[in-house]
């Protein structure tokens, strides 16, 4: 190794430039601004929509930090009734697609739902709950959907901190809370920030929930212009604003992570020894966990079960098996590829932390802030261009017309997934890698081990928890993914999410309940596996 990292830098730049293409296609639309549409939007809604978007993102950020971070702290540092079960069960809501929770909430708590109907019966026709179709309603639902990102990353971060760090602080006379504030929290900050920024990006790109709740965001406007005015170019320009938002968040994230670098100073072994809570405090902790789990998981699943009712029996096993198979296969491919590429980007940044590599990693993970259908078109257009060239060349060689190979292929679809979700695996992997002390790299290098060898033999074993989290998150994300799947899938390669969409696009929730439950069930498997594999030791 003449110059450590040169190969990795080159690989990272290559990976990033391919993955940034879809976002670049979206940004390229800015070259010819649709002035008329912008003027119209400015006059009618742009300010309101921007304000709504900011308010939503801020609300979801604060909500997920509070719920996800708080619960992670609770289960890692305390023992209370049910804590062991809650520790893994609190990840479960991840398997429930956002639109399912949103719809279940509306179904239950809307004017026509059972709760308000009962209220009116008991208290008279004037009895109302606060309107769910509002900022508060959307923030509540999205917090419940997205807090597991923060929870997962924070839990890993809290667990990875050795007991000794906290004990030292305590022995220096700090109270438990002060030790948390001054030691644990700063060290977990990269993970917390990563989790919160994932949740905020999700909120930014979401269209299903905001449409269901009638809350207008920038993303909603993108669709309004695209579908309502048939103006995809203007829609792409509007989507570019989302990228600006995302850039702003990244800058903020950089700032929040701060200049300080926190690394583990010792081998992790024991983890924090949890303190047993007693009496009212113990039950309060249990109640907090149970409340979140009940709202985010039990409630929507119960609602789905109620909708499904007897309809579950009417399922054709072969079609169902095919749907599950396609879903798992695509999710597995996307998760693996995304983790691998994230590793390349993160490791290149570690070996050679140049601005170029950092920029490459950031631009490769921009896709997460874009609505799925927008990034799918960003994939489709260059892919088809390449494909036509390829088909033309092959056809010329073969002497007869050749069909398209990439457009509408699984490869194209997986590329879209990775372009969309790389941010998830990158944030997770980078946060995990960042906690390994550089002294270990130096030690390995002084023993004559190359960069690749160090990664495989030193870093990977230490990053097991982070890597598993990255795989899990992208896997579940892909399983739930709809817009890119809808636009890019090969004919016949339908997934569970497609099946749910097909049945819900006409609001036939009773019909959609069974496949939606299947998504939840199929999402549970990797969650449980990841928990098993990550074990209680290091995670």
């Amino acid at each position: 190794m003449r110059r450590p990292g040169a190969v990795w830098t080159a690989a990272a730049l290559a990976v990033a430039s391919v993955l940034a293409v879809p976002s670049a296609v979206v940004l390229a639309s800015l070259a010819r601004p649709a002035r008329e549409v912008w003027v119209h939007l400015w006059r009618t809604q742009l300010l309101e929509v921007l304000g709504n978007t900011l308010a939503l993102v801020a609300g979801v950020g604060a909500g997920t930090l509070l719920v996800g971070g708080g619960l992670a702290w609770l289960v890692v540092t305390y023992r209370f009734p049910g804590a062991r079960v809650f520790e893994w069960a609190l990840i479960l809501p991840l398997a429930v697609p956002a639109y399912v929770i949103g719809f279940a909430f509306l179904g239950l708590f809307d004017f026509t739902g059972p709760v308000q109907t009962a209220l009116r019966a008991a208290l008279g026709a004037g009895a109302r709950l606060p309107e769910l179709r509002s900022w508060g309603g959307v923030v509540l639902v999205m917090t419940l959907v997205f807090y597991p990102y923060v929870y997962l990353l924070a839990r890993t971060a809290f667990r990875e901190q050795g007991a000794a760090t906290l004990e030292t602080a305590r022995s220096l006379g700090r109270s438990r809370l002060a030790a948390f504030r001054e030691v644990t929290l700063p060290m977990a900050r990269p993970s917390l920030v990563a989790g919160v920024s994932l949740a905020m990006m999700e909120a930014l790109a979401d269209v299903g929930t905001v449409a269901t709740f009638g809350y207008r965001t920038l993303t909603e406007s993108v669709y309004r212009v695209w579908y309502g005015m048939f103006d995809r170019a203007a829609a792409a320009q509007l989507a570019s604003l989302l990228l600006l938002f995302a850039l702003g968040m990244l800058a903020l994230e950089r700032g929040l992570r701060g200049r300080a670098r926190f690394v583990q100073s010792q081998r992790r072994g024991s983890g924090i020894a949890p303190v047993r809570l007693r009496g009212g405090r113990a039950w309060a902790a249990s109640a907090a966990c149970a409340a979140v789990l009940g709202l985010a998981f039990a409630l929507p699943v119960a609602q789905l079960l109620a909708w499904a009712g007897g309809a579950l029996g009417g399922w054709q096993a072969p079609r169902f098996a095919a749907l599950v198979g396609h879903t798992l296969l695509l999710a597995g491919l996307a998760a693996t590829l995304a983790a691998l590429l994230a590793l390349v980007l993160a490791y290149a940044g570690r070996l050679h932390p140049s601005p170029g590599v950092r920029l490459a990693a950031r631009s490769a993970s921009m896709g997460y802030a874009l609505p799925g259908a927008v990034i799918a078109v960003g994939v489709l257009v260059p892919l088809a261009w390449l494909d036509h060239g390829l088909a033309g060349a092959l056809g010329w060689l073969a002497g007869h017309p050749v069909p398209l190979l990439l457009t509408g292929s699984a490869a194209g679809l997986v590329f879209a997934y990775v372009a969309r979700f790389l941010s998830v695996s990158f944030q997770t992997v980078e946060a995990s890698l960042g906690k390994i002390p550089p002294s270990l790299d130096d030690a390995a290098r002084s023993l004559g081990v190359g960069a690749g060898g160090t990664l495989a033999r030193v870093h990977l074993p230490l990053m097991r928890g982070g890597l598993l989290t990255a795989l899990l998150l992208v896997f579940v994300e892909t399983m739930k993914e709809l817009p890119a799947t809808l636009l890019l899938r090969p004919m016949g390669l339908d997934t569970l999410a497609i099946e749910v969409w097909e049945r819900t696009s006409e609001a036939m929730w009773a019909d959609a309940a069974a496949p939606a439950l299947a998504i939840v069930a199929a999402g549970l498997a990797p969650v449980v596996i990841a928990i098993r594999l990550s074990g209680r030791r290091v995670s």
Partner: protein
Amino acid sequence: MRATPFRSPLLALALLAALPAAAGAQAPGEIVVYSARSHYNQEPAFEAFTRKTGIAIRTLGGNAPELFERLKAEGDRTPADVLITVDAGNLWNAARAGLLARVDSPELAQSIPAHLRDPEHRWVGLTTRARTIMYHTKKVSPAELSTYEALGDPKWKGRLCLRTSSHVYNQSLIATMIKRYGEPRVEDVLRAWIANKPVLINSDTKILEAIAAGQCDVGLANTYYLGRLVAKDPAFPVLPFWANQQTTGTHVNISGGGVTAHARHRAGAIKLLEFLTSPEAQQMFADANFEFPANPQAGLNPVVARWGKFRQDDVNVAAAGEFQAAATRVADRAGYK
């Protein structure tokens, strides 16, 4: 642990390369339909066509604007022979983008009334859906109702449920009104609706349920959503009122289809459209989803027939496309979200 992270992706990539071949295999003569109708996988009329002709059909479902992007990107190498979508505005847009080819078929012209077809013969209606006023049978008397415009009357203040203007069915309704009355007058109508502080709900089914539960007394919805609810619960306390019978007629929209510009099985595709518009297939559409058949020779579903006959607005449904962008703008200006 050491080597596996690198070996498994290689295996995955190999699998990936094998997939398109498996999924894309196509039987000779098979017709490919891109469909934005819901339940594209279970169209009884498609199955009947295959039984009758032996020609197999493969479908790819999706939202209309996205299917268009795919068709556009695939260009002259697209596997699609037929494009089917809901909403005339979408069909108009597909035709404008050059995605549909002209088909001169006397049979289609005979089956489907002129206002439900493209004047330039690139698409035809397959089903008709009426979007009209829905009212609670115990709280509203039909005598109080007349036109879409009259829903702006202050007597409906706080009693009105509307879908958001982002939905294409509302956009098409507004677009047809613009064709009839011009933008300024329609903007006034929408302002009057909004002045009544309607509850905005992004689902026709939910609007009907909201009327039944007493959240509002009147609303606008497509009739087939009511058909589904009534089929489940015959006592459902909501009925359609046929709007604008004394003036323009009730607004209708279509789901429809056309042959793609680069269809490889053009003859088969035309045959499919001709079959789908025949009374036999039209009956299946009518029965499957409580829609109105586009071919007047086909009978109505009994649930639908009970609502009585009505006069359709006979303005060509292409207006929905022509004025859709204008409809979105007018709604924006009127503060109709």
